[in-house]
């Protein structure tokens, strides 16, 4: 399999995630979509590392390791925020949480 197969797959996954983030009203599904996008980017990193000229530098796995750690922290904080928002608004529907909008 050439590099291009992996790149196109990562692009498809990224756009599926993007579509999910733009299309759904539920805050948690938007978090799903962000995770899908982050994972697609990780796939890109590892694919480029695998087909690179000097893979012993291990830049792909290092970056991906840190990206996974950051993504896990971001999901934790994001879900804590969603829970706090739910406690106030009693819903996680992004269309109805619009108190900052001008009337």
């Amino acid at each position, binding site marked *: 399999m*050439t590099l291009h197969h992996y790149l196109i797959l990562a692009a498809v996954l*990224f756009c599926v*995630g993007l579509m999910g983030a*733009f299309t759904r009203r539920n805050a948690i599904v938007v978090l799903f979509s962000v995770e899908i996008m982050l994972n697609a980017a990780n796939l890109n990193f590892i694919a480029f590392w695998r087909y690179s000229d000097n893979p012993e530098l291990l830049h792909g796995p290092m970056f991906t390791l840190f990206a996974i750690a950051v993504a*896990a922290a971001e999901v934790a904080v994001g*879900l804590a925020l969603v829970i706090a928002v739910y406690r106030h608004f009693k819903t996680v529907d992004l269309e109805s949480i619009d108190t900052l909008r001008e009337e």
Partner: protein
Amino acid sequence: MNEQLAFWVLAAIAVLGALVAVRKRNLIHGVFALLVFFAGLSGLFLLLLAEFIAAVQVLVYIGAVGVLLLFAIMLTERVAGDGGQRMTSRGWFWGLVMAVAVFVVLLLPAIQQLPSPEAAQPIKPSVEELGKKLMDPYVVTLEVMALLLTAALIGAVTAAQGVRMPKEEDSPE
């Protein structure tokens, strides 16, 4: 031949999992589809000979992030999916157009037929090398990541707990 078959099967699993995850009304089904996506991606990492990253993907994403998402769904809604409301947001059509446009832009290099790089060089996957790299050039990143995770832990606990309102009266003796 085996590698090709594995790639197509894992790619199909990943894409289907992602699609079902963002289109399902029932969120619990969506989360499990997302976990299938993570598993497919872990298989792809194994195919690319990054076995430590594949294990970390399963450990962190499926084991921890999946469980976290499930708990958050339990805590925040009537889970069978809000039956009455619409699932899609108000601007869904233009969102879809934007996603397709981003896809086309990302594919432009492939469409313009850039020469494909040569076949992959043989890699000997080694966890020990990863450990050495963590200590030698990347040690500052490691320490910053530890700080970040600690801050995220404290922040998540504080944000989810909420502010304790001071009690108006003392509890009866």
